[in-house]
């Protein structure tokens, strides 16, 4: 998701794919900083500080804000990014209050004691996946899953009324499902997806890079000012000032 050299993503095992969208790892070869863009997902991360004898469990709520990360050489993270509709797997009823929340170390273990055994050196992504699978399952409604799919495929351009009609649920019911399982409103999540698509339209991922006017139009912003506001909110930079070497997280609905 985040960072330059040393960052890798891979598909989760078929069993874990029910909950997990991506298994990622990052091993810092050298000290540096990275910008982590919000993706609306929850992550479970095991962090190993350089030369440390212990590791830290980190639980992240649905991300809606960018943050800068500084790291030392030898720091190592392995993480699982949950499917957006699986946020309640780690947060349960607390998901509605977990937006941009980060629990570390003792707080994280106290919150999810079942994951405490993972806090040891050398733990693997597969072991975290197995531990996740042992948590009480929280089935997402098929209508919610289809509305997420439509949000991804449309680049976040369907509003909640349209989404509700699309999957045959009432707006109220669909919004409730989003809050309970994703932890975000369909609107906030769609805005994040739109931001990521606009980023890709402006850069050369989609063949050449569009002008700001064309990108704002195709991404679904009313004008360039709206696009600029979304960039400040989710990225902390202007459309004309996309950081060099910014690594875009893999997002459904978008080419890698």
């Amino acid at each position, binding site marked *: 998701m985040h960072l330059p050299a040393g960052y890798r993503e891979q598909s989760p095992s078929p069993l874990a794919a029910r909950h997990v969208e991506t298994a990622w790892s990052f091993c810092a070869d050298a000290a540096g900083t990275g910008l982590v863009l919000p993706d609306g997902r929850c992550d479970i991360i095991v962090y190993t500080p350089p030369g440390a004898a212990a590791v830290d469990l980190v639980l992240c709520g649905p991300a809606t804000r960018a943050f800068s990360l500084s790291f030392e050489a030898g720091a190592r993270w392995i993480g699982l990014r949950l499917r957006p509709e699986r946020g309640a797997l780690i947060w349960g009823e607390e998901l509605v209050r977990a937006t941009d929340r980060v629990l570390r170390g003792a707080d994280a273990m106290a919150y999810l004691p079942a994951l405490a055994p993972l806090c040891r050196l050398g733990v693997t992504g597969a072991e975290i996946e197995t531990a996740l699978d042992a948590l009480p399952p929280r089935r997402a409604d098929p209508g919610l899953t289809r509305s997420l799919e439509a949000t991804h*495929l449309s680049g976040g351009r369907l509003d909640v009324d349209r989404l509700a009609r699309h999957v045959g649920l009432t707006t109220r019911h669909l919004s409730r499902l989003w809050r309970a399982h994703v932890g975000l409103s369909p609107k906030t999540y769609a805005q994040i997806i739109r931001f990521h698509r606009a980023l890709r339209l402006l850069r050369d991922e989609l063949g050449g890079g569009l002008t700001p006017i064309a990108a704002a139009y195709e991404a679904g912003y009313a004008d360039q000012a709206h696009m600029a506001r979304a960039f400040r909110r989710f990225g902390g930079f202007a459309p004309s000032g996309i950081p060099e070497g910014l690594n875009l997280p893999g997002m459904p609905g978008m080419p890698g």
Partner: protein
Amino acid sequence: MKFGYTIIYVADVPATVAFYEAAFGLSRRFIHESDLYAEMETGETAIAFGANVAAEMAGLAIVPNEPRAPAAGWEICLVTDDVAAGYDRAVAAGCAPVAPPAEKPWGQTVSYVRDLNGCLVEIASPMATVSTA
């Protein structure tokens, strides 16, 4: 410029091809080994199916076709001399009925169904050739 294809983005390309064979009596030209693209044997201008994920890969944002949602604002029209039989076959194969065959004032018999993906398909008799004097 020349009209090349109509490409409909769908969740499952092979399933859609099989459905079009059963419901409308069309036959497949080919399904790509990736299962992300297929063309039907519809003469010079092919109906083709692309997977939703192929739209993603091309960087397109689309409203995915969805049986439960209102149909997209366009349709394909299949022409047959026996509209009633064509309509019955389509519905028997799992199409959702929309408008049973009816004769229009201009002499054409017209019916509508929605396919497995929710796309509108018109089944109609050929129009008499209009002479342009």
